[in-house]
């Protein structure tokens, strides 16, 4: 499903080369739930950015469904992004749109028909348990609820892959646990979930595959891992 082959990413700043990712290779198969962990500055966010094609690696290949996304043209990017759902720590919801509109917006920009929107959005909102808040504005919701909306928006395209970058970073433990269980449910439906986090408790409870990054290098890749420092 996803394969990284000797991926490196270096940023240059004032003649200084900063290596964010150094020769990373791994494979993720269909239906997996993978946590990418590591301390701040380990390269988690860079890895996420490469996976959603926000940035291009300095070297190496990233194959998703057999296609090297490094070579995607900018005109193809929107279509690629529709196949990959992304969730962020800061939710990235449009503050002037209601919950329903925020989710519907993702479909609108993709030239979906109104019938499709009317059919899909309530279903997804129901899945994340937010259907009763569909007419609220994001600011009227708690952090956990906002993150559910953000997940709903990521899922509305029915992506094969859901990438979550610190989705629980702004949440209290109870809300965080609920979001993680939501991610697990999504994973059970067959979606690959890639979770970047530095939350030890969450990773330890999940007992799923853990890729540990440190200083841009892959330190370990354990099938039923724990967050080992």
């Amino acid at each position, binding site marked *: 499903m996803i394969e990284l082959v000797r991926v490196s990413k270096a940023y240059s700043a004032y003649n200084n080369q900063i290596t964010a990712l150094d020769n990373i290779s791994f494979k993720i198969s269909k239906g997996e739930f993978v946590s990418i962990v590591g301390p701040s500055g380990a390269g988690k966010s860079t890895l996420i950015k490469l996976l959603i094609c926000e940035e291009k690696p300095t070297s190496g290949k990233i194959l998703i469904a057999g296609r090297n996304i490094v070579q995607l043209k900018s005109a193809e990017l929107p279509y690629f*992004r529709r196949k990959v759902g992304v969730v962020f720590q800061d939710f990235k919801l*449009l503050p002037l749109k209601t919950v329903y509109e925020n989710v519907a917006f993702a479909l609108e920009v*993709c030239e979906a028909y109104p019938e499709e929107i009317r059919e899909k959005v309530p279903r997804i909102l129901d899945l994340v348990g937010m259907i009763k808040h569909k007419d609220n504005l994001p600011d009227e919701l708690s952090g956990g609820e906002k993150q559910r909306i953000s997940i709903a928006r990521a899922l509305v*395209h029915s992506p094969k892959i859901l990438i979550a970058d610190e989705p629980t970073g702004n949440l209290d433990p109870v809300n965080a646990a609920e979001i993680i269980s939501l991610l697990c449910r999504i994973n059970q439906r067959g979606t690959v979930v890639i979770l970047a986090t530095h939350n030890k408790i969450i990773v330890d409870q999940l007992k799923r595959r853990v890729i540990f990054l440190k200083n841009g290098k892959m330190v370990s890749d354990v099938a039923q891992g724990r967050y080992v420092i």
Partner: protein
Amino acid sequence: MNWLTISRISKLGLINFWRNRWLSLASTLVMTLTLLIISLFVVMTIVINKTTDRIKSKMDITVYFKDSAKTEEISDLQQKLASRSDVQEVVYISKEEALKIWQEQQKNQRLKELITSDENPLPRSLAIKSADPENLVNIAEYLTSPDFSSIIHKISYEDNKIIIDKLLAITSFIKKLGWLLSGVFIIISILVILNTIRLAIFTRKSEVEIMRLVGASDRFIRVPFVIEGTLYGVIACFLAVIIMWIGIFVVSPLITQYLGATVAENMKSFFLAHFAAIFFLQLLVGVTVGIGCSMFSIRKYLKV
């Protein structure tokens, strides 16, 4: 692109314009000013051209005769002039006619009474008109030849020529100034509008980011901003035309007072006759600047 996308994109553009109404207002007003100045100078240039043409066509040579000159000598000269190919018309003005003209022109009663038919110092004259004002120089030259110096008192051409040349120099200066100012204002307007749209895009950076994130195509992100830019242009164009309309009718009494009714009438009739042309010129400039600035500003945020 289907009608659904088009309607969604247009809606987004209109909403954005309204949500950023203060920024939009600033851009629109700057654009309006630019359009006003450009069209004002275009109209002015054309009115000035017409007026100078009219002045040129009114240019003539008047030859004043000494009282000692015999009538035969004058009519002889009149015939000689009339036979010239570059002369269009030669009109003889007798002392009595000169008096009549004088009295018509003078509004001051005391001045009027100063000259009576009994004591009339006004000279007889020939008014010479040419089809092409440029030819007047040759005619003036012909008249200054020593053959006629015994009967001619004065030729009016030289004095007029200096005034007219000066007038033409001033009008050409105003024209150049107009082009320069129009250019400067277009540049200022482009910079301000560019800045405004950049600001508008900057305040909606996260929105653009989210749009990209959920898979909106570049076109879907760009076009609403382009619609905004177009709106600046269209609204500015309407404003400019309305202001010009009001302006011309307010200013024309002043113009009548200082420059004469013909200039004011010229201006009014020109504006009315060329309304469509002015409108579309403004629309073209406004929309081009608006769209250009939008395209340029959004470029940065669409790069990967």
